[in-house]
């Protein structure tokens, strides 16, 4: 179980890192296609609020998992 937790730790960290360019690229694509106020507000909320929370928490969580910090919780 401990090995699986550590292995998934890599996945969480990679997901956290991968989300950043994916979201920014999608936002740029959609705003370029339709630069409406609605689009700007939506993507601002996603980039400023949601993305940093998901991304940073997954990265740190993944690192903790990889280091075996959660091995004691069985």
């Amino acid at each position: 179980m401990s090995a699986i937790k550590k292995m998934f730790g890599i996945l969480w960290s990679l997901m956290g890192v991968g989300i950043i360019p994916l979201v920014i690229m999608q936002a740029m694509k959609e705003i370029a296609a339709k630069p409406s106020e609605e689009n700007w507000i939506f993507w601002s909320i996603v980039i400023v609020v949601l993305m940093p929370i998901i991304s940073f928490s997954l990265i740190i969580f993944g690192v903790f998992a990889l280091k075996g910090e959660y091995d004691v919780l069985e």
Partner: protein
Amino acid sequence: MAQNVRNVSQTEEVSSTRRVIAASSVGTLIEWYDFYIFGTLAKIISEQFFPKDNPTAALLATLATFAAGFVIRPFGALFFGRLGDLIGRKYTFLVTLVIMGGSTFAIGLVPGYKTIGFFAPAIVFILRLLQGLALGGEYGGAATYVAEHSPAGQRGFWTSFIQTTATLGLFLALGVILVVRQTLGVETFSDWGWRIPFILSALLVGVSVFIRMRMSESPMFVKMKKEGKTSANPLAESFKQKDNLKMVLIALLGATAGQGVVWYTGQFYALSFLQNACNVEFVQSNVIISIALLIGTPFFIVFGALSDKIGRKYIMMAGMLIAVISYKPIYQAMYDEAALKTKVEMVDKTTVETKEAVKGTDNVTTTVTKKTYEDGTTYKETVKLTVPIDLVKKAELAAADKLKPETKKEVTLPQNSYYKMIGFVLIQVIFVTMVYGPIAAFLVEIFPTRIRYTSMSLPYHIGNGVFGGLVPLISTRLVEATRPAPGLPPADPLAGLMYPILIASVSFVIGMLYISNKTNNMDVE
């Protein structure tokens, strides 16, 4: 003799715990009521305070609707959580109650945009932020306070009463709005009657403050303070120390994020889906949700108590998993139940009525089409075209392609479909009770008393306020992306479910892998 003394002591303990639960729950319920009436009346509020032709005001309208949920609630959690760990639980959540009640009452008194111009949206925006701050501080305090009064082994049961308050607050908000709207009539309600639910809050908060003033401080906090063990800096201790930070992260990613999206999907998105995708009439859709909430609420206590017996983890995870698997079939069934294309129209009963009127400087043409179907469903479509009398202005609008009619579609379901809809929403409320019933006890048990208020409040409010609060915005956006052209129906009305399904799936995997099930009997020290 000794047995009698023990029995009397146990009876007194239960009675004291009940008083604590009642006093805490009433206050928390009122805070949720205050928070939800703004959301439920968002459309009327935007018409009163935010004019459509002013882009800055429109921006404020959007931010006011969402900001409290997105950004401010976690800040409230940090601010008041810190206070609660420094000066005590009782006084902190008394302050949050007064701030929430005061802001709600004040929203009901703010003059509209027509009277004070730009000050109207600015004041409402500030008051909404205060509401979010107060809510961010309230829940953690109430859950911590109740848990610290509860006997070990019954913490899930007792804290589940606090868990019912969010749903009951929504129920109360919907109920008060429906009663006031039905009593005053739609026009009067839209004009000034919407202020009544806000003003009513002052009375509710007054009663709750009176009750809370008579409560005593949490025994664990008092003991800790006497021993000089309170934290000097709860924020730093919660988020800078690895041992606590790792628990904050697991609480967020493995529990509250998934719980937040299941909560908002089962209650708010269900209402939005009924009204916008299924076009179910306003009163009927609200009654469907209200009945489902009322029937489902006792299950918070059932699952809270069950978590004392079998652990918190598997109940919460089961709720997330079943939600992930069954959302699409449930929403498909809801959509099909209201879909007119599968129903047989009774053409001889169709009526079309057109009215023309002059309103101010505009000519308004209203066409109302009413259709009846063999299964008892009725459909009403109101098309309203507003054209300026001034020919120059009319030509300008026509050139800008702005002379478009407003269309309102309303489906009134027959009794059979109506009951089925209640059933579909009720199933989702049961998922909500599974993920939400045991979560207060779970959060309380993973953090130590000295930093509990701060540590548990942040993941709770990020999970609910940000992950959950974003469900309506992101899900609506995902559905809109499948709309081939404005005015046409979306190609995939269920596309909005992708967001809650994705978040709940990740949360389920993390929760299953990393959360321990051995916390239920742990001593809260």
